[in-house]
């Protein structure tokens, strides 16, 4: 097995069809987080990207609006096959998950008046809220000992969850403040 830093050879460049199939499989497998699987597929199995290229692209995708892996699929498709590659990649990524959520939604709709089904989905919703709670704590943890960062995060929670202010207003106010604070610290 070659190391993941081995540069992908010219003939290893995926076709539009291979991009679609690759991301289709990724979309079907990624339960509760596609990121680790995306790295395994792109870097280790198909070797479309080196480890460094993957990290660089991920940085870009986190920096842009939209889902990280959705943006990553667009970036990878674009890199190899231009616009048609980008469209094939994102379509592949979201095709199966969309079909599956609609199937689940249909089941929920049909049986939501059945108390057992309602109870089951209420329990599922509670667990899903709990998972998001743990994600939030994991993301907040590196901010400990950074009073400015914690204050900004606290204001965001207050503005969105308590005062129910529109997201656009909150982002346009907090993002420049936070970036300014980062600039003063990094200067």
């Amino acid at each position, binding site marked *: 097995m070659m190391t993941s830093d081995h540069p992908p050879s010219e003939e290893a460049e995926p076709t539009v069809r291979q991009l679609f199939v690759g991301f289709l499989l990724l979309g079907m497998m*990624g339960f509760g*987080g596609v990121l680790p699987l995306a790295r395994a597929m792109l870097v280790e199995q198909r070797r479309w990207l080196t480890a460094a290229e993957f990290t660089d692209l991920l*940085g*870009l*995708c*986190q*920096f842009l*609006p*939209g*889902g990280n892996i*959705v*943006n990553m699929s667009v970036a990878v498709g*674009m890199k190899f096959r231009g616009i048609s590659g*980008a469209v094939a990649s994102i379509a592949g*990524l*979201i095709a*199966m*998950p*969309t079909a599956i*959520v*609609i199937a689940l*939604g249909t089941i929920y*709709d049909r049986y939501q008046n059945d108390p057992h089904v309602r*109870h089951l*989905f*209420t*329990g*599922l*919703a*509670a*667990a899903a*809220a*709990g998972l*998001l*709670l*743990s*994600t*939030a*704590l994991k993301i907040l943890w590196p901010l400990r000992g*950074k009073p400015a960062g*914690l204050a900004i*995060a*606290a204001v*965001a*929670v207050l*503005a*969105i*969850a308590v005062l*129910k202010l*529109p*997201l*656009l207003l909150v*982002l346009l106010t907090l*993002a420049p403040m*936070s*970036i300014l*604070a*980062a600039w003063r*610290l*990094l200067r």
Partner: protein
Amino acid sequence: MIPVLISLIAIFLELSLLAFGGGNTILPEMRRQVVDVHHWMTNQQFAALFALAQAAPGPNLMIVPLVGWRVAGLPGLLVSSLAMFGPSSVITCVVLHLWERFKAHRLRSIVQVGLVPVTAGLIAASAVVLTETLAHSWPLLTIAVASAALSLATRLHPIVLLAAGALVGLLGLGQS
């Protein structure tokens, strides 16, 4: 039908451009729009759709096609997905070209570091908003806290925790 589709497009176009830090940061705004502003569904129904989206594989934005489909069927699904995934994809393509130039630029790392607290706060707000929908029931709050604690303390797969929550819910504890 057409006004509903236009509303869906407007909502998800805006969310597409505001979704810094991934899909979970825009949940409260999505909930505010579909529940408070447009009254398309109740808080509990929105929480159920979020749970369905979490139970499905794939990226965590799958609540978007689900909301579109729930509100306006197949046309709703198509316009919501296009409005959500289109603009951010176009931005990704454009920025990809400029990325190399900014690679070593200090501004890039400053913006990246600066956005972390905002993203963290928005995801925490999403968690609070979703947990609020459970506030009427102690057993449901217990499920949420237990799944959060297990997710933090163990390496259990999220799908295991979701299944456990669904099973406990099936017992109907503390539910009407």
